[in-house]
């Protein structure tokens, strides 16, 4: 399956900015298609960023997030060359993850 998460992480001082582009339809389940049939919900549900065993960021999302969203999180607890695991699960149970190496600014 094609990688649907793209991201990078840059650290400056004690803060690391993780920027993500997640390719996802983020259907909220309320829209109707051209034939007037409802489009079933299919959106990001859980998103985490972890450094080893330490979870740096955890989010629970609804269909109110845009399609193919760009998301940015500024977190503490990472330094240059750390490898962060970004993982999501959507409402259909699809799981994807990406490892990003933290760059120095």
């Amino acid at each position, binding site marked *: 399956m094609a990688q649907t998460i793209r991201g990078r992480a840059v650290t400056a001082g004690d803060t690391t900015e993780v920027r993500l582009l997640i390719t996802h339809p983020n259907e*909220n389940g309320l829209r109707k298609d051209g034939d007037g049939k409802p489009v079933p919900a299919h959106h990001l549900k859980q998103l985490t960023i972890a450094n080893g*065993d330490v979870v740096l*960021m955890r989010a629970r999302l609804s269909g109110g997030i*845009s399609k193919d969203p760009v998301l*940015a*999180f500024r977190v503490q607890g990472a330094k240059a060359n750390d490898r962060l695991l970004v993982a999501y699960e959507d409402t259909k149970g699809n799981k994807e993850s990406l490892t990003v190496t933290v760059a120095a600014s």
Partner: protein
Amino acid sequence: MFDTQAHSTRRSLLQASAGAAIAAGLWPTAVLANDAVEAAFAARKVDDVLAALGVAPKAAPPGLGIDAPDIAENGAVVPIGVKASLPGLEYVALIGEKNPVPLIAVLFAERQSAIDANLRIKMGETSNLRLVAKTRDGAFAVSKEVRITVGGCAG
């Protein structure tokens, strides 16, 4: 060290599954067991969201902020910044007051002292956005009105 080949195989299987368990521990679903938050996502009215979360937010002290445009041309993609730096922070909840599913996102502080994020959200019509922060000292909220010129329902 191992008596038989069978033992060795079992050991490596156990090690493999332990590795998988650690990986699973990092996966979102394994760590999220917050019934109140799940109930809040099912709510369709702002008051029901707050009731499900069990919070009655007070006016926010400095340290809680929502950054949103005054006017958004495209309701399908509204850039939002959320910031919270409060003692005993547990989570922040972003609520679109007139969205069909008002609760847009809940960001958990985990062990961090602050939450600082940028999101892109959908808004169907002009309405207030509300950011509720839950801390060990109670809940606080700020809000910001965003005018929408093209609705986000088609997004």
